[in-house]
């Protein structure tokens, strides 16, 4: 297996970090990653996703000793202008404080997470990719949402990675804590530029204290030659609610891990997702919800549209722990395969150790409904337009549920643009 990177190589990278913050925590994380390496396909959770390309990018980056590209300011400003949010900007893993009005947004307290372990969700920090992130993050950010936060405009987290001059890699780490009774909205936007390969490894930890609520939209629109692994850990206390929607519209290899721990009674989460597969893309969503107590609710609803030689992976798991009575968990994953070369591995999983639970799951893989196409044609609509309408409608089911309604316009715009790319003959 080529996924091992030696501790020597990694330590060199550590020395290159600004301020050379070689804390115990970093060293521990570094050792953890060095011991394990990138996850391999023998591991059940990584069966369909081969990280050897990412390991190769990492090794090249580690040995090159190149300074990261400077921030692409024009691109950053354009991205910030596209969505009305209080932005916080990371460029190649560095926090650009001057371009981050979100750091001083009322109701938000921002601090460095130098120790990078302040809000870490217990037991969710020792997987190899989280360890790699913790070891090599240049800047960590900790956001505390105060109890009286009115959640006016969303807080935007923009990640712009550039690989213009050389192969590069970056780590982004954000810890978020919602005070009891607070409400907050987040939009996370991942973009990238550059001809060279890039690998981004992003970790967000979010702790929702009792009676807090959070609406969260993540949009990934990386260039086709750039890859990412992203992990979001959510820990939900009593009567807290999180609505999360993930839009994966770009990238080469994308792996998203979404871990939710429902640890307080009355906690609920809605997890929606939409992903597009285009030739050469690999898009893997792994979702796991742990119902530790009941009653608690989780609803997973992901949709994928795939065309050309590409692969989608969807694994949605709900674990209902002993005593989590009154759990309500649903998982749904629907996939539209627009070409015979596209592949999807979809698997809902349920593990139930409690009584009185309501669980339902369903996955489908199919083509456009020929009867529906015919129906539209009998109403005078061209076949190509009918296909476009139905493909758009398939995606709209997720878009229209956006936890942040103000984003509907931009989400629609982005989705339509992607639809035009993925099926030029079908979508006009």
């Amino acid at each position, binding site marked *: 297996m080529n996924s091992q990177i030696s501790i020597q190589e990694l330590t060199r990278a550590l020395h290159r970090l600004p301020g050379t913050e070689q804390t115990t925590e970093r060293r521990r994380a570094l050792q953890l990653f060095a011991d394990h390496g990138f996850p391999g396909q023998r591991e059940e959770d990584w069966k369909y996703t081969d990280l050897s390309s990412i390991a190769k990018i990492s090794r090249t980056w580690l040995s090159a000793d190149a300074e990261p590209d400077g921030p692409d300011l024009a691109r950053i400003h354009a991205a910030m202008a596209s969505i009305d949010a209080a932005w916080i900007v990371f460029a190649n893993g560095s926090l650009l404080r001057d371009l981050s009005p979100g750091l001083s947004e009322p109701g938000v307290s921002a601090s460095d997470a130098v120790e990078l372990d302040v809000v870490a969700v217990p037991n969710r920090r020792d997987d190899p990719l989280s360890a790699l992130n913790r070891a090599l993050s240049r800047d960590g950010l900790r956001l505390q949402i105060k109890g009286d936060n009115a959640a006016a405009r969303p807080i935007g987290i923009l990640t712009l990675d550039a690989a213009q001059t050389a192969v590069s890699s970056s780590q982004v780490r954000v810890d978020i804590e919602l005070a009891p009774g607070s409400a907050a909205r987040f939009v996370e936007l991942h973009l990238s530029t550059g001809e060279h390969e890039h690998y981004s490894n992003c970790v967000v930890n979010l702790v929702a204290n009792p009676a807090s609520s959070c609406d969260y939209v993540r949009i990934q629109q990386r260039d086709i030659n750039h890859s990412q692994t992203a992990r979001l850990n959510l820990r939900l206390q009593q009567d807290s609610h999180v609505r999360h929607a993930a839009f994966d519209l770009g990238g080469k290899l994308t792996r998203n891990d979404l871990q939710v721990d429902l640890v307080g009674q009355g906690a609920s989460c809605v997890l929606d997702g939409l992903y597009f597969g285009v030739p050469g893309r690999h898009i893997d969503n792994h979702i796991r919800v742990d119902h530790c107590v009941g009653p608690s609710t989780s609803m997973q609803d992901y949709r994928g549209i795939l065309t050309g030689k590409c692969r989608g992976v969807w694994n949605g798991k709900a674990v209902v722990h002993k005593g989590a009575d009154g759990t309500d968990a649903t998982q749904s994953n629907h996939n539209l395969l627009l070409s015979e070369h596209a592949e999807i591995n979809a698997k809902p999983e349920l593990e139930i150790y409690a009584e009185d639970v309501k669980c339902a799951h369903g996955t489908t893989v199919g083509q456009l409904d020929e009867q529906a196409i*015919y*129906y539209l044609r009998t109403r005078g609509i061209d076949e190509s337009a009918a296909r476009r*309408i139905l493909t758009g*409608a*398939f995606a709209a*089911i997720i878009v229209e549920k956006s936890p942040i309604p103000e984003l509907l316009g931009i989400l629609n715009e982005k989705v339509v643009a992607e639809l035009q790319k993925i099926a030029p003959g079908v979508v006009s």
Partner: protein
Amino acid sequence: MLKIRNLDASIGDTQILRGLSLNVNAGEVHAIMGPNGSGKSTLAQVIAGHDDYVVTGGSITFKGEDLVPLAPEARAREGIFLGFQYPVEIPGVNNAYLLKAAVNAKRKHQGLGEIDAFEFLKLAREKMTMLDMDPKFLHRGVNQGFSGGEKKRNEILQMAMLEPELAILDETDSGLDIDALKAVAGGINALRDPARAIILVTHYQRLLDYVEPDHIHVLSEGRIVRSGDKSLAHELEDKGYEWLQDIASAG
């Protein structure tokens, strides 16, 4: 308006229509009746242009033009409307969007600009009132979660908005309670016009109590075995379809 001559049509290897002939003129209402499997729905689908059905002999012309090579959408724009026996549910496409797209497709074909948004809504609401439909249906997914009766009313709503020259209504009366049947019949009657022809495909004569046809045709084994005026419907009701099958096999 519609001339069908010795039409043969098959689905896969199975021939369903066998030498069917039918003439429908503007202003007329025709009812096509017959037992299950006689080819009624096939006839409706063949006129609308369903790909699964292949015309293997004979001809269909509409306003003097050969219909067979035309795609379903081209036929629709020429003025043919098919009301489905089982209207398709399309989640994610709202009813108003479909209606507008359909109306505009036809207008474009006629060399007209897109319908004004206000005018469209006014028209749609007007037609919905006539059909006793809640305006909220305009903003729901096409037929999504609609009851049987609501789906059929929705078909009639589309017909009313599109004002076709030839409307074929396939089993529009099936599964309707009496109120829905009356509303649907009212919608059909409102569209009766000297310039328009309507073909009602139905198994029962129930709808014909509310929409009086000028001509009734009985289909058996893929061809018309008997034609007559509305009294034929009552005769059928009294004697059943078996009586006709005897005629068919004798003839």
